């Protein structure tokens, strides 16, 4: 029973990681860039949803009421809009000029953006009239159907937010699969990831495809942001850092550049963490060591399978 419960917990956590990890992997697959700031895109998505709630459902929020279910799509739209806007800006302003720079330059830039976005939200969010100060955790509104008391089938506790998260992952993954393998733009994405210059010669607008990759990543991250908000009932400017780090780990674990790898890596990582809390006996178990186990698994996988679980050959641009 406890095993099943911890698997559910792991699945929830893993789905969230997977949603974020896809963003790392899609962008890496196209331009071999570790977009370290992707965690912040996730955070911006969560704040986007919060802002939408504050703008359009103010009365509910102020009175601590539960938002109606139809608010969910509106919040998703708001979150996606915020994430996508920031991601596209980031690509345009910071990354595009560095397209041909040595590898370290975009990485440092990414760290810079990450710090910048966190600080910008922390310092400036509360300065927008009507918005709460974001220097600390900010409560996230509850939404009918996806928030509230947990289901308890067979003695298991399944949070409603879990169902939202896992469902979102399934829908997004299916959509992504269709997009990449069945549409013309998807095929162009594959072409760009294999050989951008030649893709240009085919008449593919590579810059546009790169933007598409950032948009896809940002969309999924935004949905993850809402999922996180629903699960933990608050958002904060730092939430992107650890989640981003874990999701990046998941992407690498699955084989960076491979969308299915990101999903698999995310789920694996989530389940490893949950099981480490629940089932590693003695003093090295429990939640204080779970991250150690997660990273240890990552290192082990990479040592024995350097390209990750589903990854293709290592791209070494060192």
């Amino acid at each position, binding site marked *: 029973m406890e095993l099943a419960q911890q698997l559910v*917990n792991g699945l929830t956590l893993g789905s969230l990681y997977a949603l974020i990890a896809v963003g790392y992997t899609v962008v890496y697959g196209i331009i071999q860039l570790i977009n370290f700031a992707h965690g912040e895109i996730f955070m911006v998505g969560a704040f986007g949803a919060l802002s939408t709630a504050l703008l359009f459902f103010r009365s509910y929020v102020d009175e601590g009421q539960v938002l109606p279910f139809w608010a969910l799509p509106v919040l998703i739209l708001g979150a996606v809009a915020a994430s996508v806007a920031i991601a596209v800006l980031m690509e345009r302003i910071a990354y595009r000029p560095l397209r041909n720079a040595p590898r370290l330059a975009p990485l440092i830039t990414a760290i810079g953006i990450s710090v910048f976005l966190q600080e910008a939200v922390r310092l400036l969010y509360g300065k927008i009239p009507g918005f709460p100060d974001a220097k*600390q955790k900010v*409560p996230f509104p509850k939404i009918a159907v996806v*928030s509230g008391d947990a289901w308890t089938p067979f003695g298991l*506790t399944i949070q409603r937010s879990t169902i939202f998260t896992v469902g979102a992952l399934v829908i997004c993954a299916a959509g992504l699969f269709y997009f990449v393998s069945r549409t013309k733009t998807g095929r162009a994405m594959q072409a760009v990831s294999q050989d951008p210059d030649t893709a240009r010669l085919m008449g593919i607008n590579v810059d546009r495809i790169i933007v598409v990759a950032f948009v896809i990543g940002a969309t999924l991250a935004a949905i993850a942001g809402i999922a996180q908000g629903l699960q*933990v*009932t608050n958002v904060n400017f730092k939430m992107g850092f650890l989640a981003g780090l874990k999701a990046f780990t998941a992407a690498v674990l699955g084989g960076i550049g491979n969308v299915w790898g990101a999903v698999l890596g995310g789920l694996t990582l989530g389940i490893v963490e949950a099981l480490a*809390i629940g089932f590693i006996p003695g003093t090295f178990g429990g*939640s*204080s060591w779970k991250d150690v186990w997660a990273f240890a698994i990552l290192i082990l996988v990479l040592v024995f399978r350097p390209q990750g679980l589903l990854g293709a050959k290592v791209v070494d641009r060192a």
Partner: protein
Amino acid sequence: MPQRSVVAVGASLLVASLALTGCGTRGGDDGGDTGGGSGDSKVAKIGVIAPLSGDLAALGKGIEHSVDLAIKQANESNAIPGWKLELAAEDDQATPDVGKNAATKLASDKEVVGVVGTLNSSVAQSVQPVLAAANITQVSPANTNPSLTQGADFATAPKRAYPTYFRTCTTDSIQGPFAARYLFEKAGIKEVATVHDKKTYGQGLVDAFTKEYTKLGGKVVSAQTINPDDDKYDAVISKIKPSNPKAVYYGGEFPQAGPFSQQMKAAGLNVPLMGGDGIFSGEYVKLAGSTATGDLATSVGAPTDQLESAKSFVSAYDAAKYSEPYEAYGAYAYDAANAIINALKTSLKDADSAEAARQATVQAMSSVSFDGVTGKVAFDEYGDTTSRVLTVYQVKDGAWAPVNTEEFK
């Protein structure tokens, strides 16, 4: 070169005209800058080391303003004749390294006699030796780690670590047992689960709680820790839930405790959560949401609106119109500053300079005793506060309400 001569003539004209209009000497540091007033008074500074930027800035600013208030009041009432008190606030960014720099800077300032700070125990550890070396009195409004006053083996062989260090808040070793007695004796809860965030404060609280609670005959059915960086506690809650505790005792601070309470109840574990003064904050109620009703917290001193001295502090603070509220530690900081001022009354009396009075101030601290905002302010042989009045609060209608005030024995 005609142009050059034009420039030359122009320049010399300019210089000549200015020579006529303005001349004077630059004043030295000691001259006329103070802008009138008591020109003959000597200056002594009380420093503040607290996080004035970053996550915890709200708490730090509250400390700074409260000390500022105490200093202003002392100057107005001319508490120390012949001396003017000034505030020297330094940011520690809640980081030991930065805190050490701040302490070094204050120690180098010959006018500094005492310091109120720090907020974090970890920062205190690196600030203590610097201030001790310079004989500067340090009073912390917020450090709760027992080892800061009583040394590494505080439980078995307490030994004063730094003679210059004092604090106005109680240590974990009082708050924890106080909560244990309340739960066991008053609330009649015999089975609890404990959770802490492994930080100095949280762990100390839970350790002290557990010791007292089991001594009383209560049972800790599950002992868990969380990672303060986490947002999600599903796995930990899943581990606690099967053991069916009647309450959860949480050692830590509100940013984690609030969501923990919320998630705990969403997962069907509908028992009260209790914590220390770290969760006694309006923010906790906001984060924990509507399901927080019934959650408990202990805090030091009697409720502020029940003490006469506290009421006047609150009204004076409001009147001073600071940009940030006094927050959780403002009252303690105010008391800490007043403790130093009280000591200065003795030590500065015959001192030639602030620096010369440092040692005397430290000695005077042991005899300080007055009624402060948080209760009686006095220090024992380790530098800990002798005040042991604590209050249990409970969330009712979206706010904390006092339920029981008592002196801990």
